């Protein structure tokens, strides 16, 4: 650690950079996505693991809406939020540099434990690329594909899980199929940890057999922060992980379905 008390591996988060991009994020979120974010009053004043549903293909606009809202609700100087992401994002030229300044770090348990130990909170999307590229018809479904690592991380680190659900992100492009079989046939799941390769319809690419970063359609985005879940209090020192997984995903599914029920006309309102 340096004089700031921040461990070396977390020092790439740049509060001044975040402060500089907030106006652009605010303008985009407000004008383009008419974003609404509710529920931050549910977040306890301690390090937590935010667990979200991932939408919107390669753009994941609701993630940026959440980052904007967090850094304005808790302030840039407040408890830092680090997003755990696939290392293809943090290692990418240019994009990696920008996202690391926003507080994105590789999705590795050692990073997460360091974050909690230093007083920060972490954001994780257990569904990863499989959920972000799920078919449009499943846009209001939680798809974590049985991944339970986030539960063990929260339990081991003794932090509460704060579920975050969002709608609208998956209306910014059209994902036509599942794509998991294609990824398996091309062995991308083995070589690049890419589990899904669906056909998508997006701007400016049109119909594509691979998801590329796109210009998000101006869909209405809603984000709801749900009440925290204390795994140790609810499931004890030695949890039944399947039961805990079912509970957390069930609570998130209820939250997501309720949030989706606020949609009057898809994309618009």
């Amino acid at each position, binding site marked *: 650690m340096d004089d700031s008390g921040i461990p070396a591996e977390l020092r790439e988060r740049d509060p001044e950079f975040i402060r500089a991009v907030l106006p652009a994020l605010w303008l985009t979120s407000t004008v383009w996505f008419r974003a609404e974010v509710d529920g931050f009053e549910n977040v306890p004043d301690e390090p937590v693991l935010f667990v979200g549903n991932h939408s919107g293909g390669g753009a994941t606009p609701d993630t940026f809406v959440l980052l904007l809202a967090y850094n304005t609700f808790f302030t840039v100087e407040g408890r830092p939020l680090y997003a755990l992401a696939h290392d293809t994002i943090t290692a990418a030229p240019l994009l990696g540099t920008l996202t690391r300044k926003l507080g994105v770090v590789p999705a590795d348990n050692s990073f997460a434990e360091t974050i909690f130990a230093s007083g920060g909170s972490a954001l994780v999307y257990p569904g990863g690329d499989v959920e972000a590229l799920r078919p449009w018809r499943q846009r209001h479904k939680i798809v974590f594909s049985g991944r339970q690592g986030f539960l063990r991380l929260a339990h081991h680190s003794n932090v509460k899980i704060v579920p975050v659900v969002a709608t609208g992100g998956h209306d910014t492009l059209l994902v036509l199929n599942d794509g998991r079989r294609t990824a398996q046939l091309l062995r991308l799941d083995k070589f690049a940890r890419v589990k899904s390769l669906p056909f998508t319809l997006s701007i400016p690419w049109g119909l594509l057999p691979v998801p590329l970063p796109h210009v998000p359609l101006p869909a209405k985005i809603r984000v709801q922060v749900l009440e925290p879940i204390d795994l140790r209090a609810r499931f004890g020192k030695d949890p039944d992980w399947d039961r805990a997984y079912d509970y957390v995903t*069930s*609570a998130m599914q*209820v939250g997501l379905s309720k949030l989706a*029920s606020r949609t009057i006309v*898809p994309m618009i309102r």
Partner: protein
Amino acid sequence: MPQTVSVSCHIRRAVEETGSFISDPHKLFAHLSNFSRCRFIEADDDGELWDVYMDSGTIYLGGRVLIKSVPGCLSWRSVRGTRNSFVASVEEEDGGSRLTLSLTFSASGLAIARISELIGRGFVARNLEAAAQEIRHHLEFEV
């Protein structure tokens, strides 16, 4: 033209337990947050009168309904407000139960009413799905 929207989900609870829960409107409405405005009016030989509304953010959809229930099934028809009828039914499925919620509604008018009904289908489907998920979660984890 009346529109009927149905959603269903599997609940890992015995059909008797799920059926008992959904056929009691006093228990059921207490756990349905998106039916935000529900009020028991009175009971008579025909059933129970309730005010039941869904909040669309702009207008309230619903009105006064007459509810009848038998074990494993609850139904209502409107007697005031938006013309609608509703059925919640439970059947056995894979050792648990399958809950199905169906709502039939119609709007008065011609072309604009048809457009409203089509938009309403999506809105009703999302609200019924949220209701089904709340019921499932309550029975699986909170009872």
